[in-house]
């Protein structure tokens, strides 16, 4: 059984990781796809305007990567703090 302090440290580490992931989540969708869309649209990648690309393609690719990144980091945290399932 893990110690309460260790559980607390695990939870704090988790919250930090969640916060970091949510910042990326916000930037690629709300910031690049909506708020800065006009500015980014000045840049063209192939036939795509960049802001439009983030809004209709890029944000979704990054969401997928983000979840797997979180899952793998959490697996390591589970082991490090000794709270993984039996």
């Amino acid at each position: 059984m893990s110690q309460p302090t260790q559980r607390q440290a695990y939870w704090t580490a988790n919250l930090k990781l969640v916060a970091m992931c949510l910042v990326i989540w916000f930037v690629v969708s709300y910031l690049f796809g909506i708020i800065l869309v006009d500015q980014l649209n000045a840049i063209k990648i192939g036939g795509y305007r960049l802001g439009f690309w983030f809004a209709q393609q890029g944000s979704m690719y990054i969401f997928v990567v983000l979840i797997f990144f979180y899952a793998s980091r959490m697996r390591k945290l589970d082991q490090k703090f000794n709270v993984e399932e039996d």
Partner: protein
Amino acid sequence: MDLKTLTFLVVGATFALYIGIAIWARAGTTKEFYVAGTGVHPVANGMATAADWMSAASFISMAGLIAFMGYDASVYLMGWTGGYVLLALLLAPYLRKFGKFTVSEFIGERYYSKAARMVAVVCLVVASVTYVIGQMKGVGVAFSRFLEVDFHTGVFVGMAIVFIYAVMGGMKGITYTQIAQYCVLIFAYTVPAVFISLNLTGNPIPQLGLGSDMVGTSVPLLDKLDMIVNDLGFAAYTAQKKTTLDMFLLTLSLMIGTAGLPHVIMRFFTVPRVEDARSSAGWALVFIAILYTTAPAVGAMARLNLMETIQTGPVGSADGNLIYADRPEWFKNWELTGLLKFEDKNGDGRIQYYDDKSATFAEKAASFGWQGNEMVTVDRDIMVLANPEIANLPNWVIALVAAGGLAAALSTAAGLLLAISTAISHDVIKGMISPDISEQKELLASRLAMAGAIVVAGYLGMNPPGFAAQVVALAFGLAASSIFPALMMGIFNKNMDNIGAIVGMLVGLLSTLIYIFWFKGWFFVPGTEMAANTAENWFMGISPESFGAVGAGLNFLSAYLVSKVTPPPPEHIQHLVEDIRVPMGAAKAASHH
């Protein structure tokens, strides 16, 4: 073989497959019926979640929405995928650790209150019923085209199929059927997209085709589309038409709502372990993103094909518009369903399709002798279904699309009906009315609850308050404003107490419901709107669909304030919260039934 026979064969074969699976994997115990015995592999669950999630709205309506809204439809793309990030990071692993059958059960235990559980059940049922309306309409559209009957009959046929299907299922049957349905729908969606992308840009991958040049030219497809729609008075495809605030809030409402939708959350109760719940959300999003990144290409290309079919030559030239008598076969087919309507306003026998509400284009149109837009009805929902015909694809592709649309609608309807019926049988009947009910009777109650839900959903599907995706957006507002905050605070705020949570849920739910009804009519009854549903009347320009995020904010705020002045939760509840925060001991938690 003619199209109708072929479509019958393909759709019939897929139905036989689903029913076969449902019989093979039918549930014998409540644990199997509610959470498939918690034995579903995370990748399999991801695929089932994708089918559960991708509804008639995603399959049929979304590309149509994108086709007509252009850039503004990004809110649906980001909103309906970004919610999975929230789900994976904030809810799914902890709710899996909690290890119970329903979302309301968590709320009831975490807030040690039957009243909280009851409020959650009401929110869950309202959100799910609203959501199922869109599925019924989608089924109606697909059937009316496929069986060539009118829309209402289509909904009736859909109800009958869903009825057989949902009562057979249970979570175990539904899970494996949804996996099959995912395969059908994704194949049906991507095959026409690949053909169309090849036709227009020479690139077989739609996601790349959308960013490529038109075949044989050096004009990017999106630039060409901007040009064509602009020439006919419509706003540029890639330009923003909504306000930034409204786009922001609508995206946020859809994301929070996605993470708060009970039928989606429930799917994560079926995996064996906590870490599976995290990765399974990732897999779900992979399978969803395959369709969601294809949809923008389908939408843009469908719009381009439609415009070019009707506007055959230069805008304003004497023979630049399609002669009505020469209209293609697909045009006639869709006219039969009433979803496509032409009216020869200037009596020239040709079709003019342009934006007659554009003041700047009106003068030009008058000089051409045009007397109004003659495509009086172009239902957005038909874009995906008509797409293969518009692009002259072979008949088997058209048959496949019909089967795919039905797979999408049926899989989601089954998931929603399961969420509704488990809430009634497990939370209301077993949880409140008669806790000693036998397992067999609980199963029976669940099946009866389904039947009632289907009838209500069918009626509302025939009298929907808007086109399918918009109705669905309302469900998201409710899930966002009531369920998501209660779940998140239950996990992340150890001091959130019963009164705070209940006040928060009620504030979120009522503010959102009232805001929606204010502009859409009380309970969507036409003529009871308190104000016209236009941007000038909206509070700070926030559309009713976007209000869920505001409602969620009000929920968080009021719950927090109330919890400050009311007693903290008892110690065993605080221990419960500490316990769900770590994966350890999930197997033990799950066996506590």
